[in-house]
């Protein structure tokens, strides 16, 4: 599904953000909650007004999972299976929310990488994140 060049672009971008999962994750969540406030219903455990520490902690968990997906991008179904179970049985996030996370993810990448964020990187990451979303919602029914 992912071409050789797409895999390279995905890895290249990850190299630029690896080690900063908490920071990027926190910003992702901050943008998600600000731009699409309805998504907060899925994060009630963070409270009505999540503080920086909570965003960093939860953001780090989410981005670390993305890092695992990058490492095993040839076998997403197997490596994300426990997360797919979690989303199907516990979290039950409506599938329409994943494009919202993806949009915020692209904005985070674009605003941090700026001149380095090529159209090929944007295309590869859109495809990659969409693939992750497909796997995470696959066991819903």
């Amino acid at each position, binding site marked *: 599904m992912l071409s050789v060049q797409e895999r390279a672009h995905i890895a290249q971008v990850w190299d630029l953000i690896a080690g900063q999962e908490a920071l990027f994750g926190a910003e992702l969540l901050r943008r998600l909650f600000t731009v699409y406030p309805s998504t907060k219903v899925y994060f009630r455990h963070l409270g009505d007004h999540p503080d920086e520490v909570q965003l960093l902690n939860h953001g780090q968990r989410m981005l670390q999972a993305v890092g695992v997906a990058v490492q095993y991008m040839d076998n997403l179904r197997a490596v994300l299976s426990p997360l797919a179970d979690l989303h199907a049985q516990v979290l039950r996030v409506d599938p329409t929310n994943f494009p919202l996370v993806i*949009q915020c993810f692209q904005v985070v990448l*674009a*605003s941090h990488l*700026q001149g380095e964020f090529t159209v090929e990187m*944007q295309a590869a990451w859109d495809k990659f994140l969409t693939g992750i979303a497909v796997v995470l919602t696959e066991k819903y029914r």
Partner: protein
Amino acid sequence: MLTAEEKTSVTALFGKVKVDEVGGEALGRLLVVYPWTQRFFEHFGDLSTADAVMGNPQVKAHGKKVLESFSDGLKHLDDLKGAFAKLSELHCDKLHVDPENFRLLGNVLVVVLARRFGGEFTPELQASFQKVVTGVANALAHRYH
């Protein structure tokens, strides 16, 4: 839709936008990231690679036209449906464009703004701009029948 404060911040940021460059970049990125959107631009010549698309003079020219129209829309944030009524009819009756494409282009435009403005493109500014692009997309879809 937007508070007075949001309108001010949106207009201020957009005032710094190089309309002729950003339009072409947004349209180009749309065509590369979502290649099925190329279905409306088969007469544009070479769209075979990312470089071909981003360098294509027709893509740049059309992108500029689209963003100029979007710019005009920003002056009518209180009546986007009225402002885009004619363009809506055009996109339905003559161009036959699925309105989903307006949403995709709006999202790509937001990503392009983030790329150009970096940290200045705060979550709050993103939120305001997403409201604007949604409003424009809805206005363009409004006259479909």
